[in-house]
């Protein structure tokens, strides 16, 4: 029982990380119908830049963990804007799905390779900002960092939702995602909104990177599999629903830790794909997604 509970706890923490990344996919999908296939790499870069700031590897420590977070998010935003500028904007102009998929992947490959050359190919440990000593909840061990991950992830998503609903800039984002042409005619610079959504999406990913880094190892390859799982989450929950991302993330996170423990760690990637195919077969728009009516 305690083991099960323990697995549930780590599944939830993992799932919330997936949810934040999936949320990032949704942000750009809403404004432009495109996704950053290098979202995992944005997370990885965030974690590694954070590591350089708080640890000794590049002459530091320069900052403590909490002060580092805003800097990393700014870095993430710039990186996201760069991806949009190089990889996405030209393809939106030519309406080429192949174009943005291939160029965001190409950029992801470049980022990963550059990171390997700067930070090396080996995984590094990220100093934990809080005590790593677990405490007991109903007999199961929980790390404070896991709780922080959940809180941080929820706070991030809530902040973005609030921004979209309350601020005038947020309304521009919502308007663009509803109808880009009409929003453009109303004087909204939709190009800038799309750039902004990419910046926000990568900033979220970078934030997720520094959240998850103390719990796992940090390295150039850490992002790929996280980004991929978040794809599954985004499809399971629906590409248009924030709640869907959270629920999808929790389902996948828990499924994975359970599979990893009860079946084999080698197979823990499998339920994600199975769930993905199952959801697409049964409810293609995702558990919480709305099927769009295409107008002719």
């Amino acid at each position, binding site marked *: 029982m305690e083991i099960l509970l323990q697995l549930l706890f780590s599944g939830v923490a993992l799932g919330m990380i997936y949810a934040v990344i999936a949320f990032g996919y949704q942000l750009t999908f809403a404004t432009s*119908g*495109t*996704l950053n*296939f290098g979202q995992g790499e944005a997370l990885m870069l965030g974690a590694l830049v954070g590591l350089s700031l708080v640890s000794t590897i590049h002459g530091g420590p320069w900052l403590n963990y909490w002060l580092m977070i805003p800097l990393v998010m700014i870095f993430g935003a710039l990186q996201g804007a760069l991806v949009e500028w*190089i*990889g996405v904007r*030209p*393809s939106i102009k030519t309406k*080429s*799905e*192949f*174009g943005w*998929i*291939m*160029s965001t*992947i*190409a*950029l992801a*490959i*470049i980022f*990963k*390779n*550059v990171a*390997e*050359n700067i930070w090396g190919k080996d995984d590094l440990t990220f100093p934990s900002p809080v005590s790593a000593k677990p405490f007991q909840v109903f007999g199961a061990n929980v790390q404070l960092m896991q709780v922080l991950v959940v809180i941080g992830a929820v706070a991030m998503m809530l902040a973005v939702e609030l921004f979209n609903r309350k601020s005038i800039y947020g309304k521009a984002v919502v308007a663009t995602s509803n109808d880009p042409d009409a929003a453009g005619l109303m004087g909204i610079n939709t190009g800038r909104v799309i750039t902004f959504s990419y910046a926000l999406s990568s900033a979220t990913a970078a934030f997720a990177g520094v959240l998850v880094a103390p719990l796992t190892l940090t390295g150039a390859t850490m992002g*790929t*599999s996280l980004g*991929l799982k978040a*794809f*599954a989450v*985004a*499809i399971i929950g629906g*590409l248009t629903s924030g709640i869907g991302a959270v629920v999808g993330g929790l389902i996948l996170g828990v499924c994975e830790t359970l599979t990893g423990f009860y079946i*084999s760690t*080698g*197979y823990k*990637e*499998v339920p*994600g*794909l199975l769930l*993905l*195919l*199952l959801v*697409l*077969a049964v409810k*293609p*728009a995702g558990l919480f997604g709305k099927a769009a*009516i*295409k107008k*002719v």
Partner: protein
Amino acid sequence: MRNRKWGLYVAGIALLALFPVVVGNPYYIHLAETILIYAILLFGLDIVVGYTGEVSLGHAALFGIGSYTAGIFFFKLGVPLVLVNVAASIVVTAAFGALLALPALRVTGPYLAMVTLAFGTIVQILINEMTFLTEGPLGIKVPKPSLFGHKLSEFEFFWFVAALMVIALVAVTRILRSHLGRAFQALRDSPVACDCMGVSVYRYKVYAFVISAGLAGLAGCLYTYSEEYISPNTYNFELTILFLLAVIMGGRKTRSGPLLGALIVVTLPSLLSDIHLFRGIATGAAILGVVLAGALLARKQKTARDVAIPVASVIGMAVFSYFLENIVDWRLTIFGFMTLFVVYYLQDGIVGYIRGTLEKFRPRQLAPLAAWEANADASRAWAPPAKAGEATGNLLKADAILMQFGGLKALNEVDLRVARGAIHGLIGPNGSGKSTMMNVLTGIYQPTRGGVMFEGKSIVGNTPSEIALAGIARTFQNVQLFGEMTVTENVLVGLHHTFKSNLFDVVFHTRRYRDEERAAHQRAAGILHFIGLADLAHEEARNLPYGKQRLLEIGRALGLDPRLLLLDEPAAGLTAPDITELIEIIRKIRDHGITVILIEHHMDVVMTISDIVTVLDFGQKIAEEAPAHVRADPKVIEAYLGSGAADAAHGAAAA
């Protein structure tokens, strides 16, 4: 022309046959073998990427499944027969392709890319984990196979691969030239129109992916025998990107493109491992880039801004190459930049670029009309008359259709009865719900409530392609032709339903397929004569003037042998003489027993030819009477001109 083509084929086969004998060096023979194997896979990938326009990021995994199927059949099951293993690889990989494509292609958007990406990762993990089948990271050793009891030598196996590559080349070319290939191309040009021609976009996308997977399986199987050893790490994400790069770099929608692309990506790793060679190539590319850009600028074809980024990037690459000490570490970065460059500046690939340049000097001539096309008989346009059904009564019955978009009721409890053999006008001011009605009748929208009966059967909930095959054809208000296909091909897509041939018939050009293809071409020629586009049969549809495009849409719809034809503003944008012609055509269509629903804003057209006219306003039916009565109906006048006008008209009528 034909002779030259055959000469090319013979030269190609001779080259393949003589290559090992002339070269003799096993290393180069193996390299060439790999190129041919990749080419087989790329032919298939091109069907998905080039034709249907979907992106697959799982082809390395499919390639791996093909490899491991052959490996497992040989190593675990002890099947020594190479042809059995080839067949097994194709079938197993195609089955995996279906497993992926069936759910992933149900929705439009980047889903296939996402699902195949996940699949690629999982397959690699599973190959590593399922040691009882795959031996995990240890890999499987497979010797060169025997064919009919004779163990193939290095040379002979090359010929075996070459023969299969030629077979794959012929098969893929035949598939793409058949009705299947036309469907693949049509669904990319206009998915909606494709569905409404009875060619289910979903089904044909899945077909395309499964065929593509089968070819990946074949390639994988040959790869196993070629390498004689397989291990999981070969089939990684990098390989998938390499395949995609090869297809776009070579040139989409061609066979020579994948061959060239395979040649490039197979030699690429060795190019990227020698720093001196790379520096030479980067410098060469920079010089070429500057010269090309200079030429373009001098001829004022491009502005300085257009060429700035590519020129800066090739120069940057050259400079970068001299700073590098260790190229291996930066291999992937270079690879990434190459991908970006190809995606943006070489979209049509090398083959496409060369072709485009050549056409500038010698514009492509349209193939002349064949004698049978020029002399086709318009009476062939019509399908042999079906069994004479009841000649009277309602062909279509729509009951209390409610179509709600959020809070807006685009159609509010509208009834429609369309009598067999009638021309039924449907008019109303803009936004009154006419086109929504069309979309409900053809299955593009599912009505919120209400029923539609066609020939006594309910069609609500059927897919657009099912409804089209049941006998309802349509044209579109905003023209939806298959722009990159010729006029004849557009009509042939409409005639898709006349084909019963399957993949086997197409690949082997069986008698059934040849008969069907001939019959379809003759009918297409007949239809083009009927709508007066016979002279333009080989022109690309997007090059037609607007009015002709509208006529072509009617022709394409006639190919479907409809019993009900829905025309959505066919006269929009037509000149006065064109309109007279159009009226004549619609009358003739009716005379051939096809019932017509006509949406039109040209009142003279509607009033001249309609037997009965339904008027919609704000989603409500406000009148349904003979044309003469509609014209005098105060409610109709009010809808069009406002209430004051209605009073005036009424007063005038009374006076």
